[in-house]
Structure formats: structure tokens, C-alpha cells
């Protein structure tokens, strides 16, 4: 706990900043999110740009994991589990089979989970995920990414043949409220809640915003998967050469993550 600062701030006599100042403050190791390796082992990732380390093994046999910085959602073969920023379990496990895709609110709390095997969309209600009317029927393709533009709308990237579509569906009645082909996009790709998309172009990562403006980041590898890793961070599972990398969205910097020999 930092030293107490007893200074009182007053703003034009109408507001005041904390008589106790820094009373509620803390120093903690900088935690980014969770990383799942190819063997399904999940470890917390700590660090800052250019300096990372992995924590102790957190889970095994994980099928999917995603983090927002504030929360992480972990999919085991049988359940969906939600953890807070310090690794504490939030709510109760939600029974579900297969792997999943997850979406967070802008501030980081969990919103949706998409079950790949059953084609169902679940919504977080606090203690657990609950079913919604949304199913794979109206999506007409394979879901490759999921986002939450708002609590009542689920946004999907759907692969339809060689095309990638952005489809938004109301979680209230399964109605498609928006659908658009995203020309030039190829899987893998990651959809963000503001409608922007990250995908792998030729020797580059491409971040395309909702207006279609693209920002390219030189990248020589071959991407197998993008996953939300934390606030401002995306995990890149590289297939060639095999490696786990982290993309800092705000700066476009790509870093190698520590690899652990099993």
C-alpha cells in the first residue's frame, strides 16, 4: 500500500478530490491475461511491452481461453469458467461441451460465449452464462470470431466459402440486424467490439477499422489463430515458425512470448 496522501483537492469549491488521496492504491505485478499453449496448458502472462514472463500452470486440458485484462474466460472440455484479474473464480461454472469463442464488454467484463460444437450463443448474467435464442441457423457459415458491440447484440465473423462476413444478431430474438461481406479478408481474423477487424495479410498484419481504413504491421510469419489476450493485447498463435506472439494494438508492436518446454 502506498503512503497516504492527505492533500485535499478542491475544484472551484464545487468538487474535491479525495481527502485520503492515495489511500486506495496498490502496487501489483502487471498482469496481461492468460495464454494457452498448444498442449492446452494455461498460464497467466505478466509483463509490459518487451518484458514478459509466464506464471505457474493455471489450468490443463483447456480448449479455449480469452482475456480482456479485467476478466478471463476459460473453456475446459466440460465447462466455461470466468476469472477476475487476480485469477479468482467469478460466479459458477457453466456446463458446455467443445471449444468456444468469447466476447467482452469495452470495460472488460464477459458478455458472450459461442459454443463451436453446438452452435449456440450464451450470455453472461453475472453468476453464469445462459442460453440465448441465437443459433448457427441464421449465420449460414462457420463462426471464426465473436464480439459484443453492445449487451443485446452479438457480432460474428462468419466464413461463408471463401468469403468472410460480419454478421450482427440481436440476442433478444435471433434477428440479423447487420450483415456485410468483408472483401479481402481471410481467416484467421479477430473482430473487435467497435467493428474493426484484425487479419493476416501478405507478410503483414492488417487492422481494418469499421470504415475500411487499414493499418498494416509488417509480420513475416504465418498466423494460425488470433485471440484476445488482454486490454490492448492480441495473442498470435504462429504456425510458421511455431511461436506465440503478442500484438500491442495501440502501438502495433509485436513481441515474442516466452515459450515453455513441456
Amino acid at each position, binding site marked *: *500500500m*502506498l*503512503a497516504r*496522501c492527505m*492533500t*485535499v*483537492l*478542491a*475544484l*472551484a469549491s*464545487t*468538487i*474535491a*478530490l*479525495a*481527502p*485520503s*488521496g*492515495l*489511500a*486506495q*492504491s*496498490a*502496487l*501489483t*505485478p*502487471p*498482469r496481461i491475461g492468460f495464454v494457452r499453449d498448444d498442449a492446452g496448458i494455461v498460464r497467466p502472462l*505478466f*509483463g*509490459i*511491452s*518487451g*518484458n*514478459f*514472463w*509466464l506464471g505457474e500452470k493455471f489450468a490443463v486440458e483447456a480448449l479455449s481461453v480469452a482475456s480482456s485484462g479485467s476478466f478471463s474466460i476459460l473453456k475446459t472440455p466440460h465447462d466455461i469458467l470466468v476469472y477476475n484479474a487476480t485469477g479468482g473464480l467469478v460466479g459458477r461454472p457453466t456446463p458446455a461441451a467443445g471449444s468456444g469463442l468469447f466476447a467482452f*464488454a*469495452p*470495460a*472488460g*467484463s464477459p458478455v458472450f460465449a459461442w459454443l463451436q460444437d453446438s452452435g449456440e450463443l450464451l450470455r453472461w448474467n453475472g453468476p453464469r452464462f445462459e442460453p440465448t435464442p441465437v443459433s448457427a441457423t441464421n449465420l449460414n457459415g462457420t463462426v471464426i470470431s465473436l464480439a459484443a458491440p*453492445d*449487451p443485446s447484440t452479438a457480432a460474428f465473423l462468419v466464413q461463408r466459402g471463401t468469403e468472410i462476413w460480419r454478421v450482427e444478431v440481436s440476442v433478444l430474438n435471433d434477428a440479423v440486424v447487420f450483415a456485410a461481406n468483408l472483401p479481402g479478408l481471410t481467416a484467421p481474423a479477430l473482430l473487435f467490439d467497435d467493428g474493426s477487424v484484425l487479419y493476416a495479410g501478405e507478410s503483414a498484419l492488417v487492422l481494418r477499422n469499421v470504415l475500411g481504413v487499414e493499418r498494416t504491421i509488417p509480420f513475416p510469419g504465418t498466423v494460425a489463430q488470433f485471440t484476445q489476450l488482454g486490454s*490492448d493485447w492480441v495473442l498470435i498463435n504462429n504456425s510458421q*515458425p511455431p511461436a506465440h506472439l503478442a500484438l500491442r494494438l495501440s502501438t502495433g508492436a509485436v*513481441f*515474442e*512470448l*516466452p*515459450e*515453455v*518446454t513441456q
Partner: protein
Amino acid sequence: MTTRLLLAAAMLPVTALAQLELTLYDPSSNTETPMGNSFNIGTAAVCQTLSSPEVRLRNIGPNAINVTTLGPLDGAIVLSHYPLPAFQVASQSLQAFYVTFTPTGPGPATSTLTVTGNDVVTSTVYNLSVALSATGVAAPTLTDSGGNSYCPGAQIYVGRTQVGSTLQTSLTLSNTTPNAVTATVSGQDFGPTAPVTVLAGAMQALPISFTPSIANTETGTLTVSGLVYNLTGVGFVQAVTSLDLSFQLSSNADLSSNQATVSIPLASPAALSDAGTLTLSFQPTGNLPDDPAIMFMANSTRTVSVELSPGDTAVQFQAGNATQCTFQTGTTAGTITLTLTLTVSGVTKTVSSTIAPAPVSLDLSTAVSATDSILLSLSGFDNTHAASALTFTFYDTSGKAIPPGLIQSNVTSAFANYYEANPLVGGTFNLQATFPVAGDITQVGTVTVELTNPAGVTTTLPLTVSQAPLVD
């Protein structure tokens, strides 16, 4: 039974009554004939050796003879298979030897066979002398670039070279015969493989290639119209030396919180397989602790395996197909040392990079207002682990500092306790500070933060106090 034809004493070129005589022995008839005053050995091709029949030095006297001189012992015409003087020839006994002729060029050659001996009883001196002659005839000659001539049977050393590389040596074949000659090289590691023909009277360069396949002394032959010359060459493998290796560190290797790369190119391609390790070590500045995040990314340790295969132009990391390795520089001031050790060649080489103490660096800074408080979040690192002061200044939306201006806090013990309790973090930290607010929180516009450590003061740009999302 040997039949000896004794010579008349008057015929012997001696100074005393002859007790010594020289004869030529014919094994087919088992007879000896006097050698006489002169003897023609015969005709030999240049470089070839022609030998006389067995020459016998006989002591026909009653006393032993002590032979003190015997020649010729050098030149184109020389004795062979003879004992070195002085030696004794017992009474009624003999000493056999040969006269050989090895012409170094065409034309006549002469010499003199001389024998001097003295009676061990009477001390009488005996001298024998025979004029020797022979004729050399033309033959192909082989010389190297140093002017050395080679005769058939000679060892021609072509040189020493690394396994897999080719050494070229040029010989000159001078064909002084009236006929064309053919030169053929044989031997697994020698070339050329095709025969070379040299016309009559011609002089031609004869390139010899040597490409050793193993580290050894390799042999081959050069045959010129039936004359065989022996070729030898030495193949070797050159182990890597420290002089062949150079470290190449990326330019950010002396900065904290960076992912630097190291590569180790070779001055020339490796000739030898080798293996070893590249290790990282870290010596923190002063009394600072170790920083575990200083490690290779490939395996999250401070050691990676390396290897070299013949032909490699750089040290290969891990699986042997990557010539570059990434490591983290950590977030603690100090010196990082990389040490390469190759086990086969025994090479050890190091390079160091010193990271100087630096002011606090912030990686992510946010200020978010909630209903009745402002949450500041600062992530970054202090590579001195000794931050001492933290200062905040809040501004209203018009840019005016909110009284009393600077809010300063002594954080020395807070950071010291944090680093002591969290040895894995190096110099990184995440600081979250909550400022409860009374009044219209939307009037708080920005905040600047100053962090002080022994290396200096870091001041953030004004952080805009953003509104937390209404729905989360």
C-alpha cells in the same frame, strides 16, 4: 662352385702386388669375369635406374684387407648395396655391391669406381680404379612449380586442404620423347579423371586437383606412359576458432524492457560439426537483485542449444535452422553477458551489454472516472528498483490546475517493499491509485504524473480522464 678367372698381376691398376680384384658375377652361369679398367653400365631412360651385375671385391691374398675408400657414392652413377668404409675383407673372401645409373637428363655420363685398401699385416696399400660410363636417353619429365623434378616412384605432395574443398596443383609434363604420352590420374580424391595427352616434344601443364573427402592423408597415382608417380595430399577439418565467430547484438540490447536479438555469424563456412550452448548471465548493478525475465524467449531459460554443421555460415540455434535468437533485456540495470561454448572445437566466446540505470518508464497509463472516484492505472518499470517520489497534478477541463496543485507522495518504502515481495517482476510494476471525488467529477479533465528515481524524473503527458462505460 664359383669359377674364377684370375687376372694376371700386370693387368691390375694397383700400386702393389695385387691382393684385391674386382669381378662381375653372372648368376646364370655362376661365373665371375674381371671388371677390367672400364665398364659401361648401359643405357637408361631419364629418371629410370639401371643396375650393373653384382660387382665383387675379392681379397685373394693371405691377409685381411681393410677397405678405407669406396666410390662413387653420389651422382648419376653410384654404388648401391655396399658397406660403408672402413670395413675389412677377410683373406680369400669377398664383398659384393652394385653400380647403378640414374640419368637426370639425356646424354653420356661417366664416373670412376675406386677402391682403396691396406693389408692389415703388411700395411701394403692397394688402389683399384675402373672407369665407369653410361648413357641417358630422353623420357617424359615431370616438374612442379618450384622447379623440383620427379622421377617415377617419387612421392609428389600436392598439399593440405580442408575436407570438401579443392586444392589445385599444377605440374609440368615435358615430353622429350618422339612419341605422344598419356598421363592418367587415379585415386578417389584426386583429379582430373580424364587422361591427358602430351604430344611428342611438347611441354604441357598438368593440373592436379585434390578434394579430400575425409580428414586423412590421401594417396593417388599419376601414370605417364607406364611410369607411376605417387600422389599424396592431406585433408583436414578446421575447427571453429574464436576468431571465426562474431556476436551481432541488436541495437536495443542495452535498453531495458526490450526484446533483443543475437546472431553469431562465422567468418567462413564451418568445416566441422559442432554443438554447444549459448548462455545468458546477468550481473545487476549495485545491490539490485537478479531479474528472471532476462531469458531466451525460445524456452524461457538462460541457455539455448546451438549447433554447427559443415557449410553453416552462422551458429544455428535450438532446432538448428534459426540463425537468430531473441532474448529479453529485463527491467533491471546491470550487465547481460552472453557466452557461447562449442564443445568440439572447445571455443568459448562472450559478449556483454550494459544496461544503465534509467528514469522510470511507463508502458500504459490510464485515468478513468467512475461515479465518485478517479482510477489511475500506471504500468511500467523502474530499472533502479528505487522510485522515491510520486506526484500527481489534476487539471480541470479548462486546463487549470486544481488546487493545491502538486500532490506528492514518498513511495520509497512502498516500492522497496513491493520489489522485495515480488522477486519475479524485475523492475516492472502496475500502480493503481483511486482518488475519491466529491462534487462534479466531470469537471476533472486531465492529470499528469511524475515519478522520480535515482536516474531522473519521468513526467507523463497529460492523461485525459475518461468516463467509464455506463454498461459493463
